[in-house]
C-alpha cells in the first residue's frame, strides 16, 4: 500500500516547485491576506457578540449590532471570509504542487477571489441590515450567495484545470479531499440558496434541508480542506510516508457519505425516522474517526507533533487533536440521552468553535506559515517569526478553553433545562459562555497577530521601499508567468 503513495510526487514533478510557487504567488497571497482580514473581523465580532450576552444593555440601542446579527456575522465572516479564502488559496497551491503543475489560469483565480470577497462583504453588510435568512450556520442573503457561487466557480475552474492538466500521475489522498471540497461547495451552497433562500420550500421542509446544508458545510466542506492539509503536511514535514492509502480512502468516502447526516438534535421537530437515521450516521462516524485518526497517528508514530520543533507541525498536531475531539462528540450524538441533555446548550456551538478554530484555523495557520514565505521564493522567511508562534499558542489556548467550557459546563445548563425555573436556567446557560469568552479573546489576539504577520511579510518581501507600487510590480511577473501556461 505504502509504495503507492506519491508523497514525494512534488519532487518528481514536471514543473519545478519554484515555478509552481511563482505561478501561485499573486492569487494565493491575495486569498491568504483576505483571509487574515476576515479572521480578525470574525473574532472581533465574536468578542463583541459575547460581550452583549454578558452585559445585555451594551449597544442595545443600535439595531445593527443585536446579538442575533452579530452571531450570524461571526460565522459568515469565519466560514466564508476566513475559511473560504484560506481554504481556496491552500487548495490551489496544494493541487498545483500535488499535480506538479503550475497553476492554470491565475487570472480566473484573481477574478474569482475578488468576486468571493465582494460576496462575503455583501453578506456581512446584508446581515448588519437584517437580511440574514434565519438559518443559523448558513445566513447568506440570496445576493451574496450568488456572488460567492460565481467566485468559487471561477477559482474552481482554475483548480480543476490544474488538476486535469496531468492525467498519468498517481493521486495523493489530499487531492481527493481537495477535489471533494471544490465539488461540495457549490452543491451545498447551491442547495441552500435555492431551497432555503431564493425559492424557499415549505417551512417544515426547511428544517432538514437547513440542517443538511449547515452540517455539510462544516463537516464536508471545511472538513475536507482541513484534512487535506493534515494529510499533506504531516507526512511531508515528518518526512514519512502516509501509513495507508486504504485507510485514507475509507475515511474519505465515509466522511462524504456521513457528513451531511450527522448531529441532528434528538429534539428536532422532525419525523422519528430522520432523527434515528441521523443517530445511526453519527454512530457510523466512529469509522471516520478511526480511519483518519489511526492513519495519521500511525504515520507519525514516535514523532511528537504538538511538541515538535517545527511550528507547522505543532499547528497540525493541535488541529488533528481538535478534529478528533469534535468527531468524538459527533459519535456521542448518536446517544439520544447525551444529545437530549446537550442539544439546546452551548455545547453544540462550542464544538463548532472548536472545529472552526481548533481544527480548521489551526490547519490553515500552520499551512500558511509554511506556504506563504515559499511563494516569494526560497530564501524568504516571516518578518518576525517569533511572533507567529503566538498565533499558535493563543489559538490553541482559546480552542482548549472553548472546548472544555462547552463540553464540561454545558451539563449544568442541560440539567437545569429539565427543571422549570427560568432564571436559574439562564444563569446556568451563560456559565460556559462566560468562560468561553476568555477563549474568544485569545482568538482575537491570535488573529490580530496573524494579520500583522501577513502584512509584515507582504510589505517586507514585496517592497523593499515599502511602497504599494512595488508590491504590484513584484507580483506582476507572477501573473505573466502563470498566464503563459
Amino acid at each position: 500500500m505504502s509504495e503507492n503513495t506519491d508523497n514525494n510526487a512534488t519532487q518528481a514533478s514536471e514543473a519545478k516547485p519554484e515555478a509552481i510557487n511563482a505561478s501561485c504567488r499573486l492569487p494565493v497571497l491575495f486569498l491568504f491576506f483576505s483571509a487574515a482580514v476576515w479572521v480578525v473581523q470574525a473574532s472581533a465580532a465574536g468578542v463583541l457578540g459575547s460581550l452583549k450576552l454578558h452585559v445585555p444593555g451594551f449597544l442595545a440601542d443600535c439595531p445593527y449590532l443585536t446579538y442575533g446579527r452579530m452571531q450570524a456575522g461571526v460565522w459568515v465572516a469565519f466560514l466564508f471570509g476566513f475559511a473560504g479564502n484560506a481554504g481556496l488559496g491552500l487548495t490551489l497551491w496544494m493541487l498545483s504542487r500535488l499535480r506538479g503543475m503550475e497553476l492554470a489560469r491565475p487570472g480566473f483565480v484573481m477574478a474569482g477571489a475578488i468576486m468571493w470577497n465582494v460576496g462575503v462583504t455583501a453578506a456581512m453588510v446584508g446581515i448588519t441590515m437584517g437580511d440574514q435568512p434565519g438559518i443559523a450556520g448558513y445566513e447568506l442573503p440570496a445576493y451574496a450567495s450568488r456572488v460567492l457561487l460565481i467566485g468559487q466557480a471561477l477559482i474552481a475552474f482554475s483548480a480543476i484545470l490544474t488538476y486535469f492538466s496531468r492525467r498519468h500521475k498517481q493521486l495523493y489522498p489530499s487531492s481527493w479531499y481537495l477535489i471533494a471540497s471544490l465539488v461540495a461547495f457549490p452543491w451545498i451552497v447551491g442547495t441552500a440558496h435555492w431551497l432555503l433562500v431564493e425559492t424557499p420550500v415549505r417551512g417544515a421542509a426547511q428544517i432538514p434541508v437547513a440542517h443538511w446544508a449547515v452540517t455539510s458545510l462544516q463537516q464536508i466542506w471545511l472538513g475536507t480542506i482541513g484534512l487535506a492539509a493534515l494529510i499533506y503536511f504531516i507526512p511531508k514535514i515528518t518526512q514519512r510516508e502516509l501509513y495507508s492509502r486504504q485507510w485514507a480512502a475509507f475515511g474519505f468516502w465515509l466522511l462524504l457519505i456521513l457528513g451531511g447526516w450527522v448531529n441532528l438534535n434528538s429534539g428536532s421537530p422532525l419525523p422519528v425516522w430522520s432523527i434515528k437515521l441521523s443517530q445511526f450516521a453519527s454512530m457510523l462516524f466512529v469509522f471516520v474517526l478511526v480511519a483518519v485518526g489511526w492513519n495519521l497517528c500511525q504515520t507519525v508514530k514516535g514523532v511528537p507533533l504538538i511538541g515538535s520543533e517545527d511550528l507547522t507541525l505543532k499547528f497540525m498536531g493541535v488541529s488533528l487533536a481538535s478534529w478528533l475531539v469534535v468527531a468524538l462528540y459527533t459519535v456521542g450524538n448518536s446517544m439520544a440521552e447525551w444529545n437530549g441533555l446537550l442539544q439546546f446548550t452551548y455545547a453544540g456551538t462550542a464544538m463548532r468553535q472548536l472545529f472552526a478554530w481548533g481544527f480548521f484555523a489551526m490547519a490553515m495557520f500552520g499551512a500558511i506559515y509554511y506556504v506563504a514565505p515559499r511563494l516569494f521564493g526560497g530564501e524568504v522567511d516571516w518578518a518576525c517569526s517569533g511572533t507567529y508562534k503566538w498565533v499558535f499558542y493563543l489559538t490553541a489556548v482559546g480552542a482548549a478553553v472553548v472546548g472544555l467550557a462547552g463540553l464540561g459546563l454545558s451539563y449544568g445548563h442541560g440539567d437545569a433545562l429539565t427543571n422549570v425555573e427560568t432564571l436559574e436556567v439562564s444563569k446556568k446557560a451563560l456559565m460556559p459562555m462566560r468562560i468561553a469568552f476568555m477563549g474568544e479573546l485569545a482568538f482575537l489576539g491570535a488573529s490580530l497577530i496573524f494579520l500583522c504577520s501577513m502584512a509584515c511579510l507582504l510589505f517586507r518581501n514585496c517592497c523593499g521601499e515599502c511602497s504599494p507600487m512595488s508590491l504590484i510590480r513584484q507580483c506582476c511577473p507572477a501573473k505573466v508567468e502563470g498566464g503563459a501556461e
Partner: protein
Amino acid sequence: MNKSPWIFLGVLFALSLSWWGMVYGPASQVNNLSADLGGGDTLKPRVGLAKQGEQVYRENGCYYCHTRAATGGTFGYKIQITQLGDDQKINEEVVGLDYSTQTVFKKAYAYKAVAKAVDSLKAEQGKKAEERDEAKIGDANATLISAKAKAGAHGDDMEVNLKAYGISGVNFEPDMRAQLGLPAEMNEEQQAAVAGARFDITDGTQKWSDIESTVRRLKDKAGAQFKLQPVAKEWPDVQGGAGRQSVLRDFLFDAHAMVGVMRVGPDLSSQGSKIAPLDKDGVPINTREADNKFYKHLYDPQWEGESSHMPPFRYLFRERPLEKDVLAGPREIVIEKEGSSRVAIIPTAKARALLAYMKSLRTDKSLPEAPLVNQPKQASAE
C-alpha cells in the same frame, strides 16, 4: 483511486446520498403534509401582522437565544371514563376497588338506578287502564323512593353530583333533578361540567402495557365509554408550559423555519398560549395587560427589577421620559422602575408585529401526531 474522473463521480455519488436522505426525501414528504387537523379544523397560515412579525423575529436573530421546539418526553396514560356501562358489578370489577368505592362512582350508579325506576314507573303508569296493576305501580314507586334515598345517601356535594350525573349518562326532568341534589335549571357552567364529566380510573403514571387489559375489558365487557389522556411523566417542556411536543406541521406555513440554536432564554413554542390563553371554545383571550407585559419585557427585560440576560430591544419602541405626576397618553405604556426615571413607550409597527407573531406560536391544539398532554400538576389538582 488514481483516475481523476472516478474521483469526481464518486464524490458526486457520495454527496448525493445524504442529499437524497436529508433534502430530497423530507422535502417531498413535507409537500404531502396537509393542514387538516381532523374534525373539520385546519392549521392556518400566518397572516398580516403575525406574518410580518416572523420577519422581525428573524431580522433580530431572536432564534439564537430562543428555540421553538418543545421536545418530547415520557408520559403515562390516564383512562377517563366518560360514561359508565350498565352493569354495576362488571364495571366495579373492571375499575377496581380503589375507584369503585369512590362517591362519584356510587352516585352515578344510584342515578342509573333512579333512572331505571323512573322508567319502569312510567311504563306501568303508561299502560292502558284495564292492564294497569296498582300493586305494580306501588312497587315501582317504592323502588324509586328507595333509589332516590340511596342517591341522597352519598353526600350532597354539587360538584360530585354533576360529575356523577355526567358519567351516568342518564337524563332527568328538572323536578327530578331538584330532588336528587342537582340544579333544576342548570347554568352554562353546570351544563359544561356535566357534558365534560370524566371519571379517572388510573392516575396517569401507567404505561400502555399496564392498562392494556383494563382498556380491553372496559370496551368489551363493561360497555363503558372512555378516553385515554396522556399525562407527562418526565417531560420537562410540558411541565414548563407547552401543551404538547412540537412537530413538523407546526412549521408548515413558516416563511423561515427558525427552530432555534440555544436555550439561553426559554423555549417560545408555546408563547402564544401564555400571552393569550384559549378560552373554552378555543378562542384566544387577548388582554391589554398581557400585551403590555410583553412590550415592557421587550423594551426592558429587567422592568420588573429582576435581572435578565435578554438584551433590551429599545429601538422597537418610541419612548419619552415622563415627569413624576404626568399622565401618559392613551396609547402609551408606562414603565416605572425603582432607581430610574419613568418612561412612556409606544410600540412601533415592528414591536406590534413581533407580539402578533409570538401569539401565533402555540401548542394548545391537539394534532393527531402530537396529542395534547396533561401536566401532572393539574392532574393531581383535579
